[in-house]
């Protein structure tokens, strides 16, 4: 903040009028004039600076208000152009703008277009797009592989590919137990990028889904003991207890189809062979084959099959 300079011997009053000093009337009048000035100085500077302060405040606020008004006005203009883009499509709006001379309108249109394009790019990202970007002057590309399970966004994996005569992976953070070479090589040789990425994305999503199911089993069913599972989450062995028969069951879920989140085989082990023959447990097997394991366990608990 600027410090206001205080003039000790002002020759002018705050409002610019010359100070009331009449030189012709001798010492007394001069003294009385000085006295008035001295007295008024006790009150005046405080008041004057208060007024000035208030004036500056009002001025600053006016500037701020005008600025905000201009901003809102500009945004209304942008909104108008956005609606036009949405209603008539980008191409039609573009054509209309070609005859527009007003530079401000042109600016508003382009701003609306940039915002629109950025939103569409964001939408591609949200719906799980590959987010492809060029690197090394077009010699390579980067892609993102997003995974989600039941609406929850999970890990994203990234890959950098060389775009030569064939597609080659130069860097990636895909877990080593996903057979990248086997999945990608045939399509890579034909430079079929989608054929390269789609099967991989399916595998990664299935893997992320199985792992999420395992997490949910541990989280939602503390009474169920997870005895065994592997990195790929393609096998899951859980220990179940039955409240009525007072016995325990070992349940093995095999996920041999690595593109799916549901098991390809469910096997029970129990000392009570009769129990396994019962229709109730046959139904449970069917349930585990057709429903994600954490949900199947919930249903089994509701039916009092497990504790």
């Amino acid at each position, binding site marked *: 903040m600027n410090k206001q300079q205080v003039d000790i011997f002002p020759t002018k009053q705050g409002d610019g009028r010359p100070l009331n000093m009449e030189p012709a009337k001798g010492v007394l009048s001069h003294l009385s004039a000085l006295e008035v000035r001295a*007295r008024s100085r006790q009150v005046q500077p405080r*008041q004057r600076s208060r*007024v000035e302060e208030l004036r500056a405040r009002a001025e600053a606020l006016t500037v*701020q*208000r005008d600025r905000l008004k201009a901003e809102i006005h500009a945004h209304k203009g942008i909104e108008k152009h956005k609606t036009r883009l949405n209603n008539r499509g980008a191409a039609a709006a573009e054509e209309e703008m070609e005859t527009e001379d007003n530079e401000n309108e042109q600016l508003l249109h*382009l701003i609306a277009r940039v915002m629109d394009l950025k939103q569409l790019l964001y*939408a591609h990202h949200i719906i799980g797009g590959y987010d492809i970007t060029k690197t090394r002057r077009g010699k390579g590309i980067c892609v993102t592989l997003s995974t989600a399970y039941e609406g929850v966004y999970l890990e994203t994996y990234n890959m950098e590919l060389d775009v030569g005569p064939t597609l080659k992976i130069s860097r990636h953070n895909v877990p080593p137990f996903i057979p990248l070479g086997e999945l990608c090589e045939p399509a890579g040789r034909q430079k079929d990028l989608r054929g390269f990425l789609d099967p991989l994305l399916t595998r990664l999503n299935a893997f992320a889904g199985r792992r999420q199911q395992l997490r949910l089993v541990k989280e939602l069913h503390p009474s169920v003991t997870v005895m065994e599972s592997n990195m790929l989450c393609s096998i899951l062995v859980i220990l179940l207890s039955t409240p009525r028969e007072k016995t325990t069951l070992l349940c093995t879920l095999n996920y041999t189809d690595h593109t799916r989140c549901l098991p390809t085989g469910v096997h029970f082990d129990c000392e009570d062979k009769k129990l396994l023959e019962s229709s109730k447990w046959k139904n449970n097997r069917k349930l585990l084959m057709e429903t994600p394991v954490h949900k199947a366990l919930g249903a089994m608990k509701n039916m009092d099959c497990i504790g």
Partner: protein
Amino acid sequence: MEGKLNEENMEEVMLLEENIRRLQAEVAELQGQCQKHQKELTLHSSQSMKRALSLVCGHTLQEDTHVVLSSLREEVEQLEDDLERQSNINGISLRSFTACTLESSDTKSVQQMCVSGQCSDLKFQVEFELSEVKGDERPEKSITSFNVVMGAGDLQNFSSFLSGVEESKDILLFFRTLRTFSDRMDERRRAFQHFQTKYGHVVCAPGDNSSLLTFHHPDLPGCIFLVHWSVDVSKEGEVTPKVDLLTKIPDRALQLFQSQAVVGTAEAFHSLLRLLGPEAALEEVIRAAGLITD
């Protein structure tokens, strides 16, 4: 004089104070209106956008409008290229996107979003709520409601998958499956077109996007080979094309010629299909049935 001066000042002070109060209220209200925009602007932080915005807002007057316009045009072109690249690789072109904030706090935000576009010739509109929890452990992003609108014609094979995917809110799975489904549909369309142009006089498809293709010899309108090519989508989102060959031969003709060839057609075609794939298998059928004479 002194008193008068003070009085004047007092009056001015009061006026100014009143004025300031009014301005403050006005500014606060305008700021509220602006907040929405400012949030949006943080998303668009490129240099050319910043300059263009300050120009249209009247914050800078000295900027050369032409320079700003051309740099903005350049940015639009780059973004258009980028969007085209994403549309190509994702096999989905998006037409519009709208978002509105339902809830926003330091720890959680919920946005209602609506995306429309098309995948090949399948049009779709999806509405969903995206909630983001900014916890100190792991920030979690999830879809909390999901609703799909698609053209009625496309729904037949899709419906059971669609209801499942809406329930599980798996938006990523929906788009992956939509893309694969549309790829398989395109394959069918291409194959049907191929047969229609190649064997126009013996081949007939009832509709533009039909799952049926029929063959018959011009001299034998009663004997028809029906190809039923459907693309099935399982509840889990697995897309499988299913091709069947059916024969339609008048009962009287069947009574007269009880040939093995006709009875076993469907099974024989399936083994042919496994060996050769749909296009080549159909070519073989056309050749074997003597529908064309080279």
